[in-house]
């Protein structure tokens, strides 16, 4: 089975178009390490936001820590604005699948304060949800089988691309 994906740049443009009517200049984009951070940087430029994009690492809140998949060495600290209190946040990630990453991201965000509103923007919703989570903004929905992986990569020139493959020893 082969699935052809649209270019990532086109998906980001479509995502920005969906978001544009709903964001204000002081909306804060929060990219999830690593792919979400790259996308948030692009969206930030396209949407002309004033607040710099934030980034979070969800390792502290992952629910598969006990399976030995928890903290990776070299986990990066999260960088959120001094106060998220009362802010409008849009969490940005590359792919939405089970919803567990978003659950961890929300926990991480709430360790820093109480935002007014949190939305979710992803490039691809690949299905396979295990938690009641839905994207607020999403330009592409796919039905990928569980054994298939969908990874975002960035080359030296900063170009983003998706690659499809077989999952290796997935938990």
């Amino acid at each position, binding site marked *: 089975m082969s699935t052809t994906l649209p270019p990532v740049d086109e998906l980001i443009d479509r995502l920005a178009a969906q978001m544009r009517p709903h964001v204000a200049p002081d909306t804060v984009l929060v990219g999830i390490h690593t792919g979400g951070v790259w996308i948030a940087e692009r969206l930030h430029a396209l949407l002309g936001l004033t607040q710099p994009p934030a980034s979070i690492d969800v390792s*502290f809140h992952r629910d598969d820590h*006990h399976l030995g998949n928890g903290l990776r*060495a070299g986990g990066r600290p999260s960088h959120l604005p001094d106060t998220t209190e009362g802010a409008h946040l849009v969490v940005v990630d590359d792919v939405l699948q089970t919803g567990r990453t978003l659950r961890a991201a929300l926990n991480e965000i709430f360790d*820093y304060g109480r935002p007014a509103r949190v939305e979710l923007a992803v490039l691809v919703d690949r299905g396979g949800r295990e938690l009641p989570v839905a994207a607020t903004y999403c330009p592409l929905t796919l039905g990928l089988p569980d054994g298939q992986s969908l990874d975002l990569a960035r080359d030296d020139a900063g170009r983003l691309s998706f690659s499809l493959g077989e999952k290796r020893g997935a938990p």
Partner: protein
Amino acid sequence: MTQANPQLNQHGELIHLLSIEGLSREILHGILDRAEPFTAVAEREVKKVPLLRGKSVFNLFFENSTRTRTTFEIAAKRLSADVINLNINTSSAAKGESLLDTVDNLAAMQADMFVVRHASSGAPYLIAQHLAATGRDHIHVVNAGDGRHSHPTQGLLDMYTIRHYKQDFTKLTVAVVGDILHSRVARSQLHALVTLGVPEIRLVGPQTLLPTAAAQMIPNAPLRVCHDMAEGLRGADVVMMLRLQNERMQGALLPSPQEYFKSYGLTPEKLALAKPDAIVMHPGPMNRGVEIDSAVADGRQAVILPQVTFGIAVRMAVMSMLAGVSQ
């Protein structure tokens, strides 16, 4: 007779932290890397992450140490663990219960982790081996100081501090000064420095406070004994001072604290022999005027308080790493 290193599982992953000895450079850097994000946790609104939520951490202190116990307690609590503190020297040991009986009892209370402080070198090994022999090696053991042998989290936080200020271990000259003979901190530091590739390590102190075979204590290590403080400090990048215990200050080891300070106390004049950007470390609590002059302890080269802060992050890293490893 060779025995398997009891702190690693068959995949070479850390299941207990008993000593720095026997841990690879990769594992040491892995722990330090992992500690880094934890340094930021204390600066958040919620100073807690849920990695050890629902886990029971028992602080088994067979030897009293409020300070060390507190640092482990803070680390465990910031990981959301439930912490139970036991000062055993005042309870069961006085009633004649053996160490392993105590351990069996506490293991039966569904402990997930033992943080052990004991006056006898090797006691945490005995506990870890006993847990393995009785099929309970899902309980992790962290050595919080055993006799003169090891204090691995102190050694790790010292390495975190050095890496923070000096980055590259492989170009450093490090002086360890003071009572090396009786110091578990020194032994942990030495193993870590050697493993991390420090090319010159000086052991500075009088003959009465150094092991007879000090320079041979780690095979093929760049250890050099200096009885002369000036020789030990000259050109050093890192000066690691050790605490001198009160009971050693007078008697057959040393005549008096004053005489010790004269020869081995770190004063601004002596520190001037080290590199201008040398850092000064001390595991605390300090004896001002015995091993270190206040002008140095409070001076711009001292990194003694950052050591304490990093210590929490390093202990969080170790505990979360152990709890996260699959058996």
